[in-house]
């Protein structure tokens, strides 16, 4: 076993992993952070999306040992009690979530976009979310949600 130290949602953790352990397994099975989901284990669906040092990645095909010392963000880390991230507000308000299974990954993909591009077009949003599959919603209301959040965050800044 190898020792692994990493920070998740601002809290540091130490755990042990093998050579083939994925970041997703660390989060779910060791740290009990379950918002990243197992949808394919091959990087095809995006339900396991998390941010590593603010960059969107697939935790299911991220070798855990490659995250040594890194900062991981999951959707649990976006909200504080009684205070949602504007993206969370918008997904709730605009019906960006149906079954909810893709939602955590979708919100993180959207966050990665807005961090870099605070005023995206609908096309920008579609491109940024193109690796996150949703089988319920047909994507329109998801794009609506991201656009609304961008608007909200833009106003908050001014």
């Amino acid at each position, binding site marked *: 076993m190898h020792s692994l130290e990493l920070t998740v949602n601002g809290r540091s953790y130490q755990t042990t992993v093998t050579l083939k352990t994925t970041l997703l397994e660390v989060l779910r099975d060791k740290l009990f952070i379950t918002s990243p989901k197992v949808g394919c284990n091959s990087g095809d*669906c995006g339900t396991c999306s998390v941010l590593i040092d603010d960059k969107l990645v697939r935790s299911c095909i991220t070798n855990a040992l490659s995250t040594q010392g890194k900062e991981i963000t999951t959707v*649990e880390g976006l909200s504080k009690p009684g205070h949602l991230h504007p993206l969370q*507000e918008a*997904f709730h308000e605009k*019906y960006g*979530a149906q079954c*909810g*299974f893709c939602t955590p990954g979708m919100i993180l993909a959207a966050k990665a976009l807005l961090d870099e591009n605070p005023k995206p077009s609908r096309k920008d949003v579609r491109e940024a979310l193109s690796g996150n599959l949703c*089988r319920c919603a047909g994507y329109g209301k998801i794009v609506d949600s991201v656009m609304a959040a961008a608007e909200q965050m833009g106003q908050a800044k001014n």
Partner: protein
Amino acid sequence: MTMKVVGQRVKRYDGMAHVTGETRFVDDVIVPGTLTVKALRSPVSKGTIKTMDTSSAEAMPGVAGVITAEDVPCNAYGLVPDQPVIADETVRFKGEVVAAVAAVDEDTALEALEKINLEIEEEECVLDPLEAMKPDAPKVRPEGNVFMYDERPFRQIILGDIEAGFKDADVVVENEYVHPSLEHAQLELQTSLAVPAASGKLTIYTVSQALYFHLGQLCGILQMEPDQIQCKSWAPKTGSSWRHNAGFSDVNYIGGTVGGGFGSKNDIHADHVTALLALKTGQPCKWRWTREEDLLYSTFRGAWFITIKDGVKKDGRIVARQMKSIRDAGGYSSLNPYVVDKHSFVATGPYFVPNVQIHGYCVYTNKPPASSMRGFGVTPSVFATELQMDKIAQELGMDPWEVRFINAYRTGDQTPTRRVLNSVALVEVMQKLAEKAGVDLPDKLKNMNSKERGWT
């Protein structure tokens, strides 16, 4: 009365939990001491199990239990209970479960599967339903490859006089349509966690989209006495080493929050196996399918082969429809006979046809069992019917809108199953569509409504 809540765009009840990641799906439930389940699947599409020796697997450190068909009290389930939980002697599709293992972790479970000594004598299979319908085709099932609706090998729907209808027609339009097999591709994989208790109570965390439907079936698997078995083809093992005698209140099915269904979770995929392993090992057992397993071996929308022959008047009226639809059901009934029924009941689409003859076939092949998927059997009938409408329009030199307006059901029309319709709105729905899409319909169509035909 004006309504205050109904009709409002209120936010999703569980939306807050979804966006915060709080929503707990089956895979997110953590119970200490849970074993990992993996299944051994048939490598062939059809065959007879000659050897099934699990002793080496059972002897492995870390393996808590192995089950085979011998361990299933009533090894037959489904709406038509004809599918074994674990294949017993005969395998009918590639990927059919022939044994399952519960072990301390995934690696151990997978290693144990490799230690099971399985020999299957491969037999000639049939994958094409059109081939399977031939008298000399390899038998998927002992009693024949076509589901019997009463005395017929098809569901028959008859209205009016089909021959008179064709005689009355000016033109006959006949075409063949193929609707392929489709996968639900719901994002939450087939997953089940069964937790036994010393009291005898079994708790199952399920992805089911039909809790009570599955509860009933599961109790059937766990308790039925041999003389209660409805299936004829697969006799249960009376010498089963244990029997649970479960009633509805002995099992608590926990679920209700499903990560996408679309019909993929109307059939039990994993709960029966985890339940049996939990009862055998006395430990919580969890089985999460891989995406590959889910794509290849879970239920799916079976393929359809549809022939439509319509008798049409020059003015656009369809006066006769003869339709033959063949459903590739795969190896077991699952919900297929029902799917064919639903398809057949509405096989003229949203159009009034006075003379109708529909034959819907449910045909078994050596594929995983097809079953429900969003739209059941209606999806392929809509596909075929709507292409057929455009082909009729083309044949008559008519506008595709007009053909649909002319034939659209009106209030008081009779369906092929002789139901008289109320609350009909197709004409209005099409008018709204045209308006939204910026299509300027001719006045004749703009002035139609669903109350009356508007033409003679």
